[in-house]
């Protein structure tokens, strides 16, 4: 994994503001998405992030997470 599971959770959570604001921003250039289309864009982004996250880094499957030492 390229990112820790907790990091992945946070990245996916950050998609929420990105998606709701993206719809407004796109309307400025006359691209008006419906809720369904926004949901589809979101789903594509989620899949893309999951694929990226679960691809092994440098082909050795080693995780980069630095969370192991966070038990404070």
């Amino acid at each position, binding site marked *: 994994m390229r*990112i*820790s*599971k*907790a*990091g992945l*959770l*946070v990245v996916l*959570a950050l998609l*929420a*503001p990105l998606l*709701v*604001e993206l*719809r*407004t921003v796109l*309307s400025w250039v006359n691209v*008006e998405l419906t*809720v369904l289309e926004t949901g589809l864009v979101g789903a594509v982004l989620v899949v893309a992030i999951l694929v990226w996250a679960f691809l092994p880094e440098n082909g050795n499957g080693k995780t*980069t*997470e*630095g*969370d192991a*030492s*966070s*038990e*404070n």
Partner: protein
Amino acid sequence: MMTMSNAYIEEFPAEAKVVRTAFYSAFLALALGGVFGIVQTLHRTGYYRFIDSADYYTVLTAHGVFLVISFTIFFLVGVFTWAVTTSLDRGLEDLRFTWGWYGLMAIGITLSGVAILAGFTDATDISASVLFTFYAPLQGHPMFYLGLVLFVVGTWLAGADWFRSWWAWKQENPDERIPLPTFMVLTTMLMWYIATLGVAAAILLFLLPWSLGLIDSVNPLLTRTLFWFFGHPVVYFWLMPAYMMWYVMLPKVSGGKLFSDPLARVVFVLFLILSVPTGIHHQYLDPGIAEGFKFIAMTNTMFLLLPSLLTAFTVVASMEHGARQRGGKGYFGWLKALPWRDPVFTGMALAGLMFAAAGFSGMINAGMNINYLVHNTFWVVGHFHLTVGTAVALTFMAVTYWFLPQITGKELWSRSVALGQVVLWFVGMTFMSNAMHRAGLLGVPRRTAEPQYEGFEFEAAVGSMGELQAQIALGGVLLTLSLVLFFANVFGTALNGRSDDLPANEYADALSGPEDAPLVLDNLKLWTGIAIVLVIFAYTFPLLSIIDRGGLLGPEIIPLPVFIESPALLVGAVEQLTAGTLESIRPVLEVSR
């Protein structure tokens, strides 16, 4: 082998009990406020209405008062007690006095709470559906005001308790700098003393006597202005403990040190001197206050951005330092090395991120001209759900996961549930506050049970009103689920057995420590003096002007309906008007002839 931990409860068992009691009081208020939150969300959006719309305002009052008065302030007195005792490394001077102020706060909020909740039943005449902004002309039962007075006096005594600790410590350490957490507590309380003078005056001189029937009327603009004298700085009373956590806790859980102790002191001094002379920015649309005074309030408010921007810089720099200590590399790669698995860290980081968005919407609220666009709309509700509803509430919930083991001596029930809870709060609030802001831009009003009008549709620039309502309801449901997870952890932890393997009671060291801070920063008398002078500049003339125009107890009351005393007078007036009109059009008539 069992080892003794250095947790707070081991060092200060009696004080830990005070903090624990204050926190549990805060959580009770959070639970009640949360229930009323989802009730009003579903009612307002029209998804599920089981209360009468007239009761919506009782629900709204309970939601506001329980969350922004009880939850926040009970929690912060717990945090401040921890901060003073830990950083001075000494117990409180007299625990009977400490329990005294806690008791006063508890009795006070119970009286106010009962007065609010009694509004749901007709069995009694008691009610106080006056909203959190309880100024005239809305009038509550005297018990509501009396309760608030006791609650605020309790916080004053709490401040005296912490000052007493500091004075005792100073006698023994005359040449030491004030430890940063204690410095933050003292500056916050000095600000609070000044700020609450406004609400004390509003209640004791006007609202309580009016509610008791001792005086017939009040000057509504005067009570509004006195409320906002307190009503804006109370925002910083909520925020400054959250800032304290970002300064002394976040760097620690990030694995590093606070970037700069002097900058942190500057920030709290700026909050002390600038928080109060800004309240009139809530009254940009109030007639009766000259534009010039509003402009002064706007200028002071914009200066308040400075400590927030300093905080953003210092806190992010501290996080980056922590991440690099943990092996993080690159311009942005260090972000991956942060302890995202830790709900204390993730909750505070997400709260800080949301606060950045709140800062931008706050700038719009604070701008005199652009405020007219959003004043009294749902935008404002979206704004304060990002500030107190996320920057403060999410930070408080996140640090609860650190504090609970410290004050109970028990391990946290579930870190995974805690992590899910803080992330769910972030997502829920994203949906809800975004839609609230956007609805406000369409002119959707705040404080309205049914913002659906016959023969009129709000036109959304993007999407539709229906979608915005759905987004708000979705956000409200996610936030409620997040609260359920939070309370599961609080209960689960309370039911755990005692543990001897808990983290030590520590806070972050600083890269640049107090020795780098000019001595003048610790001169609390100087900063308090400047704060008072600024308040006098900002408020003397507006208050005198309001009293001059509207009277101390309001203008003379003219009973309605208004009758003209004599019919003869009316006939005379009509005759005079007709004659004057005929005279004025005579030349026109002659020409046309």
